[in-house]
């Protein structure tokens, strides 16, 4: 019954680029637990839009540089 999300993200790479920011540090900055950051990086959880924007703000990039959705995936 696992519904794998189709949203992918570049958080791991962005963390690395941001001076190897730890999961714990990112978690603290956007008000999540470290376990939720792990779940997001593994594609096991899609954060709320609010949190998604906050993550993008932390890395100072547009939202779609953090989260991507496959092309041509309009809901059927």
């Amino acid at each position, binding site marked *: 019954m*696992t519904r*794998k999300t189709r949203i992918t993200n570049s958080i791991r790479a962005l963390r690395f680029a941001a001076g190897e920011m730890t999961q714990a540090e990112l978690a603290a900055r956007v008000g999540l*637990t*470290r*376990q*939720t950051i792990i779940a997001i990086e593994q594609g*096991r*959880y*899609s954060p709320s839009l609010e949190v998604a924007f906050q993550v993008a703000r932390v890395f100072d990039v547009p939202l779609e540089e953090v989260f991507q959705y496959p092309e041509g995936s309009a809901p059927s």
Partner: protein
Amino acid sequence: MSFREKVVWVMLVIMVVVYGGYFASVLQAVNAGIEVSEIAYRRAMLGTVITVVCLSIVGTIAVTIVSRGDDAEDERDREIDRYGASLGAVVLAVGVLGGLALAMIGAAHFWIANVLLLSLVLAEIAAGLRKVIRYRSGV
């Protein structure tokens, strides 16, 4: 494992062990052929419920200590909590309907009380299981 997930696991273990013990002893009495009106379940039931409440408090404190005071919860924890609780509500409703039916046919208090407690317990266990599955499998 997040603080909330640990608490869910601890609650599951407490529920299964303590209520499992209670229902095992009650069933044993029934199977032994004791008239249900003779089974002194009230004291045992109240004692069991109080025990579970106390253990829950102790368990949560223990998890907090193990987590070194990091008892943070976030939107994912709350979402999973609601997701599990929605299944618990259905289980509870079915159980309560069973209790109502027993009351309407004039069943012994023993059966009504125990079916109601059982539905509470099964509802909590179903909710807890659904939560840990969600924590593990995700989305």
